[in-house]
């Protein structure tokens, strides 16, 4: 074979050249300058005024530039493009703003000590170096893990009933799951409070909190799992059944492994739904300042409860503790997600 030596180098001819970008750059410059001018001259003042003028000017200028250079269709395309960018900014800005605020206000109290101590011997107005939130962390782990243990099998089995078994009541089950996802979280708390405590005479404990959270988690897990299972191609089911497998073996060996990463995502979304819930926990776990290692008996705390309590105490140290609690809760949820993603990675599935 003869090697053909040529001077061809890989290029991207569809990319605009620098020269062609000039109108866009000028347009952007014009937008910025004119916005500054308008804000300076007119009574529109402040960040809000600037933002509004900037949005209007960027739509107008980009549409005009495209309209003059090309035609009406290009102008409309530019208008919608700018609108889409603005809409995405509206979604992203609050998210980053929240993250920034949490870090700014919470990072000050972050130290190794808070993960080793509880609040049983610390008064609320003592400095942040004293005491910690280990009791709330343990409480949250108990409540969230127990809620996941309760709701994951129920949620996934319900979705299997709807998608795989297609039983006579599949439609009804789906309807009730959808209705369940509309339950206000305080109602779930009250339900457990009424059944577990008033009716059955139990007192506050972590299991009760987990029960309340499980009620909120089941619909999320079930609905997401249902969507995931629907994505599994039907010919995989047929292939399994045609090999002489029972339905159960097909589901356990083919469907669930193929849907594994999606099912893990379903559980993650369920955890995300409940990890920050405060209202149902107020009614079920009772709250505590000391570590309670027994989830089946005695009051315990949880991160959202810790935040709520400290914020309502009102003194500067407590409010700092509340922000610290929010930061730690966020980090804990992030670690949960990463672990679940790592263990839920699906092998060899190619699209």
């Amino acid at each position, binding site marked *: 074979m003869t090697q053909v030596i040529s001077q061809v180098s890989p290029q991207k001819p569809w990319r605009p050249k620098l020269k062609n970008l000039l109108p866009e750059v000028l347009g952007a410059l014009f937008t910025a300058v004119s916005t500054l001018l308008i804000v300076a001259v007119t009574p529109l003042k402040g960040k809000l005024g600037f933002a509004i003028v900037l949005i209007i000017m960027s739509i107008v200028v980009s549409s005009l530039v495209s309209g003059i250079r090309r035609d009406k269709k290009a102008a409309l395309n530019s208008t919608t493009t700018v609108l889409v960018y603005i809409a995405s900014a509206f979604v992203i800005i609050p998210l980053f703003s929240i993250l920034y605020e949490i870090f700014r206000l919470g990072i000050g109290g972050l130290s190794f000590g808070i993960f080793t101590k509880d609040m049983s011997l610390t008064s609320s107005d003592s400095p942040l170096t004293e005491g910690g939130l280990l009791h709330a962390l343990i409480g949250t782990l108990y409540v969230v893990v127990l809620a996941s243990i309760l709701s994951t099998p129920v949620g996934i089995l319900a979705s299997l009933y709807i998608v795989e078994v297609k039983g006579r009541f599949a439609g009804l089950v789906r309807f009730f799951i959808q209705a369940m996802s509309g339950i206000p979280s305080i109602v779930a708390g009250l339900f457990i409070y009424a059944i577990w405590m008033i009716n059955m005479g139990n007192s506050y404990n972590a299991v009760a909190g987990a029960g309340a959270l499980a009620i909120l988690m089941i619909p999320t897990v079930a609905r997401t799992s249902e969507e995931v299972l629907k994505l599994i191609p039907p010919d995989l089911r*047929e*292939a399994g059944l045609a*090999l002489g*497998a029972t339905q159960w073996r097909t589901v356990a060996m083919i469907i669930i*492994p193929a849907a594994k990463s999606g099912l893990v995502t379903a559980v993650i979304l369920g955890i995300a739904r409940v990890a920050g819930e405060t209202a149902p926990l107020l009614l079920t776990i009772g709250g505590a300042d000391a570590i309670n290692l027994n989830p089946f008996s005695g009051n315990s705390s949880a991160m959202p409860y810790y935040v709520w309590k400290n914020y309502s105490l009102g003194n500067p140290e407590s409010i700092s503790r509340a922000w610290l609690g929010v930061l730690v809760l966020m980090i804990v949820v992030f670690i949960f997600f990463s672990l679940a993603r790592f263990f839920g990675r699906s092998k*060899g599935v190619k699209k």
Partner: protein
Amino acid sequence: MTSNDDSRANGEESMKTAKAQVAKASGKVSPSSLADVAANRLQSQTANTVGSTGLEARSIHAWFGKKHVLEDISLDFYTGTVTALIGPSGCGKSTFIRILNRMHEFIPTASLAGEVFLDGKDVYEPGVDVTKIRLRIGMVFQKPNPFPSMTIKENVLSGLKLAQLKMNNQEELLESCLRRAGLWDEVKDRLDEYGGALSGGQQQRLCIARSLAVNPQVLLMDEPCSALDPGSTLRIEETIRELSSSMSIVIVTHNMQQAARVSDYTGFFLSDGGPGRLVEVGSTSQIFSNPKEQRTEDYVSGRFG
């Protein structure tokens, strides 16, 4: 995986034969040339064509809801032979073979009349274990569907695991199944890769190997080559020929040349707007050279359908 690793000597050779045969086959399609193909095929296989009736369908009718889709189909399938089912789309060929291994009942609106006998026993008799029926009547689908969460090895052995059968000599079984499916040489060094990494033709042969692992008596193939290139098609046809000595194979195909090349018997299905009927069945050479029905001749000579 961009190349399908057919570059090994063995693969290359078969590609050459494939190309030659395809070139031959895709020339002018006239009934006489198809008949020649069929006649050659039959000569080479006469030793195998004598066999007992393994599977019999007796006056099969099928409905989807109120729609009558199959009317009075009776067909015998002999062990050691290949039976091709041909006919235009929508005439009920796939429905018919799905009735044979009881896959028909998975469609909620489906209903059925008639009997299917496997070794003299009705597979639809109450009390029959469906999973045992499907173990004895394997199926290969139109679209290759290896299990995505399993490696090549696990895919081949999956039938045994799914049916919870005992497995002696795993490695031996794995190799023999892959060899019989004509895939061994291409995958022997990558048995622990996932099935999805193979090319389409290799995936389909993997699915065939998977069906063989449970040692079925009958293998149903629902247009197994319709999504494959000519080279892979030829490989699978070779596989079908090799397998036919030990089992009964039923293949649904839209490809006349394929029916002529691989089958001993051919059944022609047709639906004239109403339910699908079996217009004619006979030895493949007779169907392609000397059909009794005018409609069969029109179809096999490409005048309609």
